[in-house]
């Protein structure tokens, strides 16, 4: 006998709320805090309804101070809570960088495990929603280099819920980045019950034989569209991998796919220099170098600040650029 799993079609932002509600219900030590997360339900409605359901002791409107939010969350987590701190936008996290870099991620080591920081920092990020300047930053690579921090990015509702629950249950700090362009762009089936998606594991969005596309966040659907277009015109198939966790990267999946296809294209919207593309190239270099049939291609944002929105479409990797990179890899 099998029990029917209840599913509902949710947007990614609804799945985030669902994950938060699931964990607030299950674990008394889970609290949500940030600017406007209470009565207002968050500027993207990610915490909608939670204040009414769980009250102001567990869903907390804080003063407007990013360092204060992360700094006090460190204290709360060391003293028995599992805070989920919201940064209103990733582009506003910079005042809190010190707390993250010098304390949240070092406390376990500085005390050899005596004090640990099981906190999650959620932040909407990325361009393409015509947001005012600074709101569209995609600076995940600033955080993947911080020892002691996991960096997780879902691309769809199902993964968002499972990855967020896994992040909340993780015993160490996790930066959970939510591509705001994907918040409401599509709905996927999400089980009503609790489930997790393992951190550090990529997922195949599509199997193929000739070239591997490695991407994450809002670039996943964009890459899928470009690939669909490409495959209609060319006699070659693409494999698309959503990395989902940027630290630690899923080395096995990257290796497995590149060994098969011998070609790789990395797509991310962050600036090229120092971006996670470099680390992926390094993983391929270490694990699948002799399988490569062509130099690894990358499609990224420019080494410029994310432009104001009249120009953001030109900044973001386009279908044309992705297809151009696939052709370059195949024609080498």
């Amino acid at each position, binding site marked *: 006998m099998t029990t029917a799993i209840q599913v509902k079609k949710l947007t990614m932002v609804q799945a985030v709320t669902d994950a938060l509600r699931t964990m607030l219900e299950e674990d008394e030590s889970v609290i949500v805090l940030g600017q406007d997360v209470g009565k207002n339900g968050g500027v993207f409605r990610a915490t909608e309804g939670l204040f009414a359901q769980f009250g102001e*002791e567990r869903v907390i409107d804080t003063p407007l101070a990013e360092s204060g939010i992360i700094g006090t969350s*460190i204290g*709360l987590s060391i003293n028995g809570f599992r805070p989920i701190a919201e940064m209103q936008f990733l582009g506003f996290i910079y005042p809190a960088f010190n*707390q993250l870099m010098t304390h949240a991620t070092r406390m376990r*080591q500085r005390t050899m495990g005596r004090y640990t920081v099981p906190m999650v920092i959620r932040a909407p990020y990325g361009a393409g929603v015509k947001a005012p300047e600074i709101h569209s930053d995609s600076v995940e690579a600033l955080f993947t280099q911080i020892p002691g921090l996991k960096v997780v990015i879902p691309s769809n509702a199902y993964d968002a819920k499972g990855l967020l629950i896994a992040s909340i249950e993780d015993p160490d700090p996790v930066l959970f980045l939510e591509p705001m362009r994907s918040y409401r762009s599509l709905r996927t089936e999400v089980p009503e019950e609790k489930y997790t998606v393992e951190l550090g594991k990529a997922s195949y969005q599509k199997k193929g034989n000739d070239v591997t596309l490695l991407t994450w966040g809002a670039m996943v659907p964009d890459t899928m569209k470009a690939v669909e277009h490409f495959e209609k015109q060319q006699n070659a198939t693409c494999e698309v991998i959503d990395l989902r966790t940027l630290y630690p990267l899923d080395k096995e999946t990257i290796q497995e796919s590149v060994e098969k296809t011998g070609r790789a294209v990395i797509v991310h919207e962050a600036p090229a220099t120092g971006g996670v593309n470099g680390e992926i190239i390094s993983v391929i270099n270490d694990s699948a170098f002799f399988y490569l049939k062509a130099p690894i291609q990358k499609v990224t944002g420019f080494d410029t600040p994310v432009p104001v929105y009249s120009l953001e479409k030109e900044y973001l990797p386009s279908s044309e650029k992705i297809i151009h990179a696939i052709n370059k890899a195949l024609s080498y």
Partner: protein
Amino acid sequence: MNMLEKFPIMQYISEEGEAVNSEITDMLTADLLKLFYEKMLRARMMDKKCVNLQRQGRIGTYVPYEGQEAAQVGSALAVEEGDWMFPTYRDHAATMTFGHSLRNLLLYWVGRIEGGIPPEGKNIFPPAVPIASQLLHATGVAWAEKKKNTDRVSLVYFGDGATSEGDFHEGLNFASVFKVPVVFFNQNNGYAISVPMEKQMNSKTIAQKGLGYEIPSIRIDGNDIAAVYLETKKAVERARNGEGPTLIEAVTWRYGAHTTADDPSKYRDQAEIDNRRKTTDPLSRLEKYMKNEGIWDEEWLTNTENKITNEINTALDEMQKYPEANIDDVFENVFEKLTWTLEEQREQHRKIKRGQMS
């Protein structure tokens, strides 16, 4: 409004060792006064030992606190088991009084991870190095205590320079908004490394900075252990009773350099040290008071000095005999479980160390 008048420096025992307010100081028992003196002496002897060890090259760069013993010891004696302490790198007089291990404190100054770990049951954070960042941890920890409905409190230390940092203001604001049981204990020793208070801020006091956050704030003579102890105790009781945070500005002075790598003669008149030692020293002030009260006892002092010397020598011995540092501790404490990158790096490091790399 004249802030120096609004926030007068509170003093219970004068520089001459006289009771300023005998109704209050009469509450201090002979045993408590002896405890004050013993703990301050212990802190001073430890500090002197560390400065000497650094000069001999037996420990690394060291941060001395001599001159600030009353501020640190008096406040540390005002909190209890189960409360939380958040020191900076200059507050080991406070942490050792609160129960930190002398061996671990010494391990800290020889660059050992173990130096940041308090003994079991003692809630002491590792010293905060980035300035003022610890005010937020103290606020978060105390906030958690409040949420758990306990009566435990946080006591957090910081210097005059720290009040220029954003985290100072965010810490005070969060604590005030959420009425958190935390005592913000400022040691105003007049200098942030080389920058004197009058260049650090245009405000005349640090206590007045609490006004902006509606936090009860006081200014005390940080070299008068009676004032420090009694006023901190009041703040701690307020916090325990759910009345929220307090800001205490303890005015003091450090005799030594910022660290053993610093030369204070470049930025301040070193003759001031001799003057301060003669006039405002926290230990000699208490000694004078105890003599005036007829509870000074030379034999007790000799015994106490011997006891402390033994304790410090034992700790030094334990530090020197401590097992060698192990790089595994670095790999194993980044996350609860090693990630594959850490596994690989550790393995490669081990192989090269063993000479097994081909």
